[in-house]
């Protein structure tokens, strides 16, 4: 396509030497990564919905007034809140990676890493608690 000599000058500066320029392979890998991350987030949303139904069922059958019913509902609500946060950060990370790669912008990519970090912190804490619970079950 020929360049229009009457076009106004673009405001975007030319890409810096040695900056972020993704190859088609890199774009394909990140695009695919973002799709799988979003796919996993859909399953997380389904699990959150099932946990919500379970807590409603618990309220209907056991009732929140009893200590057992109240404990189950509080546990499910906390688990749902944690999973909602993790799912949102996973989706944000996927969007950040995809936008950063398509625009060759390291700032947007950095934002994706920030969201991925929070997602990994949530699962890191869950992993530590899970390991401690397993050790407790063996020792106790």
């Amino acid at each position, binding site marked *: 396509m020929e360049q229009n000599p009457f076009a106004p000058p673009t405001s975007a500066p030319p890409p810096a030497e040695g900056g*972020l*320029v993704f190859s088609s392979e890199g774009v394909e*890998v990140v695009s695919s990564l973002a799709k799988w*991350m979003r796919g996993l987030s859909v399953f997380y949303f389904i699990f959150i919905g099932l946990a919500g139904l379970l807590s409603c069922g618990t309220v209907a059958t056991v009732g929140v007034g009893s200590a057992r019913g109240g404990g189950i509902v509080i546990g499910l609500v906390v688990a749902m809140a944690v999973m909602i946060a993790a799912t949102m950060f996973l989706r944000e990370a996927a969007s950040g990676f995809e936008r950063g790669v398509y625009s060759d912008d390291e700032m947007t990519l*950095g934002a994706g890493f920030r969201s991925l*970090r929070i997602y*990994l912190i949530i699962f890191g804490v869950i992993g530590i608690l899970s390991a401690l619970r397993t050790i407790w079950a063996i020792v106790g």
Partner: protein
Amino acid sequence: MSSTRIPFTREDKEKIASAATWGLVVSVTSLITGALALLVELSSAKASEVFGQMLQTGFTVVINIWLLQASLALRKVASDTNANDQGNLLIGFRKLRAYFMAQVIVILIAVALGVLAFVAMKAL
């Protein structure tokens, strides 16, 4: 992707390093939990439970090794000494893709098996 440095800001590099550290935490704690759970099941007498736990532990080991590799590659991106930022970033993204893809596939298989078991129970 060419082998060049990426001009990440200092703050972004710190976040990438922190994400890599937490990735290591997730993978190591998952590997420890998987190994311990297998040890507990091995002490039980039921062979079917042991087989199921072995499958689960095998899957945990594979996906967490991918997460470990991704975290190590991202640590290199965050470090100032390594010049091949884009190459390491691509390795990290590839391993992360394998990590998330395997999880989705296993959930799909588990859901399919669950539906099959439900249908089989209804048919009996």
